[in-house]
C-alpha cells in the first residue's frame, strides 16, 4: 500500500479549539476532553494538537519537532541542522507509554537559532531561510519529517484516537493560551504519523475537517513559490496558503480570508464600488488560492485563532464565547463538554470567519467591528 505523500488520502474529521484572548495559559487537559467527546468522528488513524505559549523558556527559538524513522536518519539531519542552525537545546519529546499507541517513530525536538552568517549568505529573510530548510528536509530526506517549526508553540500528532495521542504526548503537563485539536477519519490509509493534523509552517498550524477539491489548483500555484507539497494532503496546502498570503504577501487577515473563502459573486455585486473593486481584484489575482470543496478549519497563530468554513458551509462548525475564552468546534457538544454555559453560542455562516485575536495582537486586520459579514471576537 502506498504511503501518504505518495498518494493523497481523503478524510473526514473532528476539530476543536479554544483560546484565551488575554494570553493566559491553561493546561491541555480541556482540549483533550473536548475532542474526545467527538470520538465517533475519528477512526483511530490520526489525532493531533497544537499549543501556543507552551515553551516560555525558549520563546525566541524555533521549536523543531521531528519524526525520524530511525537513529541513522536522525544523525543525518543533525549534521545538516548543526550546519545551518545553532541548537540551543534538544531532547526527545516526552511521551507516556499507553496501550493504544503503537509503532511510534523517534520523536525529537530541537530549539534552534539560524546561524546569522548563513542567513546573510543565503540573502533571505530569516523566516524564509527557516522555511527553505523545512522544505528541504521534508522533501529530500527520506525518513525525517519536521512537523512543527514555530516559536513558543508546538504540534503533537500521531496515529491513534486524539484523546490517546493527547495522553501519549502528556499534554496535560503543558500550558498554553491557544489549543487546537483534531480527530481524523481517513477513508483509506496505512496510518502514517506525518499524515495526522495539525499541519504547520513556522507558527501557523491548521486542523481541518473536510476535503479540498481545489487541491490541484492550490498546490500547483504554491509550487511556483517554492512550497513543496510533499505530504499530498489538502491540509498541508492550507497551512502554506496562509503562510504565502500572510507572511510572503503581507496581506491583512480580511484579505486572506476573502481570498480563501471569497464572497460569492452575488454578494460582491451588492458591495459598494470601492469594496467591490478590492474583492474583485482579490479574486482575479488570488483565484488559484480560493479553497473549494467542503472544509472547516481552525488556524492557530501566535497572534490568535481563526476559524473558517467553506463558502456554502458543507462542513459543520460552532463557535462560543465565555468571558475571555473563545471556543470553536465541529459540534456544540465539544464546547459544552468543557464550557457548559457559554455567554454566546452561534454557528458561523459559510465563508464567515471567526477571528479571535490576542489583546496585544499585532495583526493587520481591517474589518470594522460589528460589520455584518465578519465577526472579530476581540472587538
Amino acid at each position, binding site marked *: 500500500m502506498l504511503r501518504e505523500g505518495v498518494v493523497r488520502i*481523503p478524510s473526514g474529521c473532528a476539530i476543536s479549539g479554544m483560546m484565551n484572548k488575554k494570553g493566559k495559559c491553561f493546561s491541555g487537559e480541556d482540549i483533550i476532553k473536548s475532542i474526545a467527546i467527538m470520538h465517533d468522528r475519528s477512526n483511530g488513524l490520526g489525532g493531533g494538537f497544537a499549543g501556543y505559549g507552551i515553551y516560555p523558556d525558549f520563546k525566541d527559538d524555533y521549536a523543531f519537532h521531528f519524526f525520524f524513522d530511525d537513529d541513522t536518519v536522525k544523525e543525518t539531519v543533525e549534521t545538516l541542522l548543526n550546519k545551518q542552525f545553532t541548537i540551543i537545546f534538544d531532547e526527545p519529546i516526552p511521551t507516556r507509554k499507553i496501550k493504544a499507541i503503537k509503532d511510534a517513530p523517534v520523536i525529537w525536538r530541537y530549539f534552534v537559532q539560524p546561524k546569522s552568517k548563513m542567513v546573510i549568505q543565503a540573502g533571505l529573510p530569516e523566516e524564509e531561510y527557516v522555511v527553505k530548510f523545512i522544505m528541504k528536509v521534508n522533501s529530500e530526506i527520506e525518513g525525517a519529517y519536521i512537523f512543527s517549526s514555530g516559536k513558543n508553540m508546538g504540534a503533537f500528532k500521531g496515529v491513534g484516537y486524539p484523546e490517546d495521542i493527547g495522553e501519549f504526548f502528556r499534554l496535560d503537563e503543558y500550558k498554553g493560551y491557544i489549543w487546537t485539536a483534531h480527530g481524523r477519519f481517513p477513508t483509506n490509509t496505512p496510518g502514517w504519523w506525518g499524515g495526522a493534523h495539525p499541519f504547520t509552517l513556522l507558527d501557523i498550524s491548521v486542523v481541518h475537517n473536510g476535503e479540498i477539491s*481545489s487541491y*490541484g489548483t492550490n498546490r*500547483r500555484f504554491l509550487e*511556483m513559490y517554492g512550497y513543496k507539497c510533499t505530504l499530498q494532503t489538502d491540509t498541508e496546502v492550507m497551512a502554506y496558503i496562509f503562510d504565502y498570503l500572510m507572511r510572503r504577501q503581507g496581506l491583512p487577515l480580511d484579505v486572506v480570508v476573502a481570498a480563501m473563502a471569497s464572497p460569492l459573486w452575488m454578494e460582491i455585486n451588492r458591495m459598494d464600488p470601492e469594496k467591490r*473593486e478590492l474583492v474583485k*481584484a482579490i479574486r*482575479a489575482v488570488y483565484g488559484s488560492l480560493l479553497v*473549494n470543496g467542503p472544509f472547516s478549519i481552525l488556524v492557530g497563530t501566535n497572534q490568535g485563532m481563526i476559524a473558517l468554513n467553506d463558502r*456554502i458551509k458543507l462542513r459543520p462548525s460552532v463557535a462560543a464565547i465565555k468571558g475571555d475564552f473563545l471556543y470553536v468546534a465541529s459540534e456544540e457538544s465539544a464546547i459544552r463538554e468543557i464550557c457548559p454555559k457559554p455567554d454566546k453560542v452561534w454557528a458561523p455562516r459559510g465563508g464567515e470567519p471567526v477571528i479571535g485575536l490576542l489583546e496585544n495582537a499585532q495583526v493587520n486586520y481591517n474589518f470594522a467591528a460589528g460589520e455584518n459579514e465578519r465577526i472579530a471576537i476581540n472587538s
Partner: protein
Amino acid sequence: MTLSYLTPAFLVERNDKRCIQCKVCVQQCANEVHRFDEEEGEVLADELNCVNCQRCVVMCPTRALSIRKSPNEFRQNANWTADAIKSIYIQAETGGVLLTGMGNDRPYPVYWDHMLLNASQVTNPSIDPLREPMELKTFLGRKPDSLVIENGKLKEKIPPQLELDIPIMFSAMSFGSISLNAIKSLARAARQEGTFYNTGEGGLHKDLYEYGANTIVQVASGRFGVHPEYLQAGAAIEIKIGQGAKPGIGGHLPGEKVGREVSETRMIPEGTDAISPAPHHDIYSIEDLSQLIYSLKEATNYEKPVSVKIAAVHNVAAIASGIARAGADIIAIDGYRGGTGAAPLRIRDNVGIPIEFALAAVDSRLREEGIRNQVSLVVAGSIRNSADVVKAIALGADAVYIATGALIALGCHMCQKCFTGKCNWGIATQDPQLVKRLNPEIGAQRAANLLRAWKHEIKEMLGGMGINAIESLRGNRLMLRGIGLTEKELQILGISAVGE
C-alpha cells in the same frame, strides 16, 4: 485543358414520388448542382459540383432529397487511398496548391477523448448547481505579483482585465472570410452571454462598433483596417502571429470577395487581393514583438489587455514563455485542428501539434518559471463541446476560443468549401443573396443558446467534482485521468492514468 479524371464525390438522390418540382433546391444551391430542365419539365442534378452542404436536403419541403458518399470506389489500396489519388488528379489538372476550408480532418487521436473527469462520492459532496451558486466568471489579463492594500483599500489598480461570465469566447474570424451577418450573430451572442468575439484580421465594420465592449480587435500582419479608432473600439487587442490551421503561413482573401464593404473595412481597394504575409514585417524577433505589444498599449493608454495568438508548434512552451516576458497579457494558442476559411491542405493536415499537448506544455513551463499567474492562457483548435472546455481548463487554460463550433451553431454543415465563397448557409460568403440567408437575430439566438447549454453542462461537471468556482478547476490536473495513453503522453499532459 485535358479531360478531368475526377468523379463526383457524392450522390444526390431524389425521391421522385416525393419531389413536387418546386425548384427550392435549384434556388438554394449556389454550386449549381440542381437545375430545372425546361424540356423535360423536371429538376435534375449535376453531382460533380455537390459539396454535401446539406442546404437542399434541409430546405426541401417534401424531404425528397438525400445525399450520400458516392459508392464509386478505386481499387482497394491501403496506401494509395482515394484521397491520395484524387489529390494527384487535381494537381495534375491545375498545377496548383490544394486548398481546403475548416480544420484538420485526419484521423489523428483526439486527446480530449483520452481524458476522463473526476466526480465526488461520499467523502466530498457533489454540489447541485440547481440549488447552489456555481461561478464561472473568469478574468483574462496580466495579474500583478501581489496586491497593494492600504487601510482596506486597493492602493494600486490591477492591470486591465477582460471579464468573462463564461470561459468561452468566439475566436477570430474576419469580415471577408465570413459574412457580416455571421459576425453580427456572434457579436450579439457575446454581448448577451457576457463574453467576447474577435474581429480576426478583417477590421471592424461600422455596424459593429456598438459591440465594442464585447469585441477583441485583431492586429494581423496585413494591418487591414487597423487605425486608432479601431484599436480604441475593442475591449482588448490581439496580435495574430499564427493560427492552428496554417502555422507559418499567411492569409489570402481573393479579390472577388473584396466588395465595397469589405474594401472599406479593410482599407484596401475594391476587388484587390488582400494578402496577409506570414511574418509581420516589423516583427523578426521577440524584442520586435515586445515593441509592438507596448506600442499598442501606448496607443490605447494601457487601458486594454494585449493578447498574442500563436499556433501550437513544436517549441510552443519556450515561445509562450518569451511572449509572456515580452509583455503580453493573454496568450492564445491555436492547435492543429483549428479551423480556417482557406488553407493549403498539406499545411493544414501536417503542420503543428495538438492543442492538448501544447496547453499542457505551456502551462507547465510557465509554472516552472514562476510566471504562470502573470499571463492568461486561452486555447483554441477544435473545442467541440463543454467537456472539452472543462478538460482544457483542468489542464491549465483560463478560457477557450471556439470558432468552428460557433459556425456549426449558425448552420455550418462542415462541407469544408469555405474558400469558394459559395457558402449556402450565408456564413463563409460575401454574396449578398447568400448572406441574407443568415438572419443575425436568429443566428445570435442560436450562438447564445449554444453558450448557455454549455454553461449548464459545465456547471454540472464542476458540481460533480465538488467545485463551485471555475478558478478552482484551473490547472487542477488531479481532476483528469488519462485512458489509452502512453507513459510519455501522460507525462507531458501531467496527468495520472485511470485507476491511479
